[in-house]
């Protein structure tokens, strides 16, 4: 276990949120906040990915084929067949 120092008003806010969300403890609540943050981060990147794809003018299948070629290129460089 580790202890972190936070301002009193933030502590009060966390306690209020814990009660509001019915979490067993602050650690459980923070874990859920971290999970939600990561999920939002992923959803943002999903939008960026599809925007990148749209700009390239390629379909997803074409994109995967292109990626396959890169995979082969890496295999040839890293694991040359004897």
């Amino acid at each position, binding site marked *: 276990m580790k202890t972190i120092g936070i301002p009193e008003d933030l502590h009060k806010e966390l306690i209020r949120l814990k009660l509001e969300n019915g979490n067993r403890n602050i650690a459980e609540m923070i874990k859920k906040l971290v999970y939600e943050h990561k999920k939002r981060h992923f959803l943002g990147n999903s939008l960026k990915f599809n925007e*990148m794809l749209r700009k390239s003018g390629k379909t997803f299948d074409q994109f995967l084929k292109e990626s396959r070629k*890169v995979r082969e290129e890496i295999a040839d460089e890293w694991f040359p067949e004897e």
Partner: protein
Amino acid sequence: MSGFLRNDVIKIVVDTNILFMAWHNSSGKAAIVLDKAREGKIILYAPDSVKEEIVRVFKRHGQAEEQIESFLADFPIIWIEKDIYNIFLNKTKVKHNADKPVEALSLALGCSILSADNHFNICKNRVDIDKLLREFG
């Protein structure tokens, strides 16, 4: 308990296609599986060659280093260096050289493969995505 379950946490090796599929369809099956990893219900592994592939593909699509790092931070993947799975490369069943790192890593770690690529059908330790999702009800 299924064969790919170890100590109540599922450990799987993923390939690049699964990650790209999740970004492409954020509510699809691949994204759901990766979400389970975020919840700590699955441990994801991938060879360093998968990371290199993602980096090269994104670079060729003009993505900045920072953005690529941001993409890679989306999933809690444990990246494994080739020194760990190298000796298993010649024990693989997949035909194509490009698919060998994923299977070799699965053999090195003794866990299943999750891939959307039919090339892995030959592998006995390949896990079906629907079957995997059923584990979570």
